[in-house]
């Protein structure tokens, strides 16, 4: 099973260079105050997205599925390794862009102005996990090509939803629910919120995993 | 990757012959044993390598060896292979006599078809006995 994750990485050796180059580019070019905040998030999201999609695309082409399922692997292992690889790619992308940002800043470049922050990391992790959790069952049900359209829509939604959500909260700040929620959140220590968030994400991924598994088990190649 | 041991044995299979392939093999091996071309105790190729050389199925070579074993011509030792069986000298002679008689019978039949008389036939035999 770890073999499969290794394979996902090996087929994308070139991508690693692209991720590095792209991260540097984003950190440097997103320099206006409005965008600077988003640099780390955008960079990591893009890299992760490309890695994950790269792996999924590769598996979907040709007779990949047949060869894959002729190895001594259960279908469970195939699905499991894909889910784990999401985390692998995600943390790898974050590490790359975080390290690059630190290096660029310490050698005295004008941009980026900040190091990667915890909220950046959490933003990426949350977004990616939610998108993946929703995308993967579709990928396993319909295959890469048909799921791709859906995936692009998802990604676009993800770019806009956070903004919309924030606006909604601002506009409805008088509403009961919002006030109550805000109170709860304010009284909870940060670590609790983070902890809760993590549990939520993992649960979402797990449910997604179960759905993907049942879909993949039934598939005929 | 190939193992070739030189075997002093000739086997030629004819695809156009009416005889079943395994029968052709049996005949040819048997003949070579009876004429002494294959010695007592000599090792025969494994059924698999024989099959490979002749480009036929192992089932056929197995069939042939089983038949030869049934006739007492060869012996198969588990794990070692097949060998030309110790031929009882008397039995060998007997078998070869039978083959000779068979050949004589063929000659006689052919002579009858050609309407050659007994006397003519005996004359032929005398001449040949002198020459050969």
């Amino acid at each position, binding site marked *: 099973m770890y073999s499969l994750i*290794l394979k996902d990485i*090996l*087929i994308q050796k070139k991508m690693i260079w692209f991720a590095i180059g792209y991260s540097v580019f984003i950190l440097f070019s997103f320099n206006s105050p409005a965008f600077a905040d988003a640099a780390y998030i955008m960079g990591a999201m893009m890299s992760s997205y490309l890695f994950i999609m790269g792996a999924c695309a590769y598996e979907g*082409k*040709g007779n*990949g599925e047949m*060869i894959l399922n*002729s190895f001594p692997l259960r279908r469970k292992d195939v699905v499991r390794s894909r889910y784990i690889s999401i985390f692998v790619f995600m943390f790898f992308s974050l590490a790359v862009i975080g390290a690059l940002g630190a290096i660029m800043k310490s050698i005295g470049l004008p941009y980026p102005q900040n190091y990667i922050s915890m909220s950046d990391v959490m933003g990426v992790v949350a977004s990616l996990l939610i998108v993946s959790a929703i995308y993967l069952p579709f990928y396993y049900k319909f295959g890469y090509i048909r799921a791709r359209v859906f995936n692009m829509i998802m990604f676009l939604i993800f770019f806009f939803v956070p903004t919309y959500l924030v606006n909604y909260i601002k506009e409805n700040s008088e509403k009961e629910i919002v006030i109550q929620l805000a109170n709860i959140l304010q009284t909870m220590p940060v670590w609790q919120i983070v902890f809760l968030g993590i549990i939520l994400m993992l649960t979402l991924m797990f449910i997604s995993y179960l759905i993907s598994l049942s879909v993949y088990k039934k598939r005929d*190649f | 990757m190939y193992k070739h041991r030189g075997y002093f044995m000739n086997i030629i299979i004819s*695809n156009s012959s009416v005889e079943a392939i395994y029968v052709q093999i049996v005949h040819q091996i048997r003949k070579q044993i009876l004429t002494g071309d294959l010695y007592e105790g000599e090792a025969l190729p494994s059924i698999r390598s024989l099959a490979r050389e002749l480009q036929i199925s192992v089932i056929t070579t197995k069939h042939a060896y089983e038949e030869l074993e049934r006739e007492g011509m060869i012996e198969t030792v588990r794990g070692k292979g097949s060998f030309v069986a110790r031929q009882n000298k008397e039995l060998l002679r007997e078998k070869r006599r039978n083959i000779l008689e068979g050949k004589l019978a063929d000659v006689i039949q052919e002579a009858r078809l050609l309407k050659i008389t007994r006397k003519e036939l005996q004359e032929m035999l005398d001449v040949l006995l002198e020459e050969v």
Partner: protein
Amino acid sequence: MDNIIEVKGLKKKYEGFSLQDISFNLKKGYIMGFIGPNGAGKTTTIKLLMNLLKKDGGEIKIFGQDNVRYEKSIKDRIGFVYDNSEFYDELNIRDVKRFVAPLYSRWDNKAFEEYIKTFNLPVKKKVKDFSKGMKMKLSLALALSHHAELLIMDEPTSGLDPVFRQEFLDIIQDFMDESKGVLFSSHITSDLDKIADYVTFINNGSIVLTSSKEEVMEKYGVVKGGKDDINDDLRQKLIGLHEGKFGFEALTSDVDSIRTRYKNLVVERPTMEDIMLYLVREGKGNV
């Protein structure tokens, strides 16, 4: 366990095609060839054996065990060779080995290196730059490097030149011994002539014939004769009859009877190609 593969009453239904009641066995120590025209069901049957498709009915046992329940341990002992695998395209041989080796419990690295050397495969080049023959050699090397006891191959020699095809057959025969088995599907009938011990002929989703090649070669024959030699009695015994301008030709499954009763007819030993052609022709006639 004498049978490496045991298939009983296998059924699978698709849109527009169904596999009906497929049954056959492959004993240890033998090579079985699957022949049939394109679309006959060869690939479907192989996919069912490998659990790539879910069967609708019937039983499949490999190494004496149900092929679904013991899927993982069974596949550990099977070398699978499939035509046209783009799966390794972006990798080089070293990378391929790095992720394939840990998947098998009995991976033999020395054997793999040997094969790569013998097959003359470039270790650093990406597989997508390999020729078709080289890709096949890689698949073979992988299949033969984990002490597999059974080789299952779907059209392994199509698209290969005759020289390499012979090499391929030699490699398969080197692999064989009394404890192993090989099942391969092919429409290149000369391959079966050369190395198959058993042949199973599939057409339109059913098995038309499954037997030892020896039996087929001795009981079946190509019958040829003049136009006047045909009569209804004879027709009964003929398969895939073709009446042409200068005579007729057909297959029979009862050579002895034809030889005794119709002494003027020519009867020849069939090749696998003959078997396939006449059986297919017969199948078309019966539809």
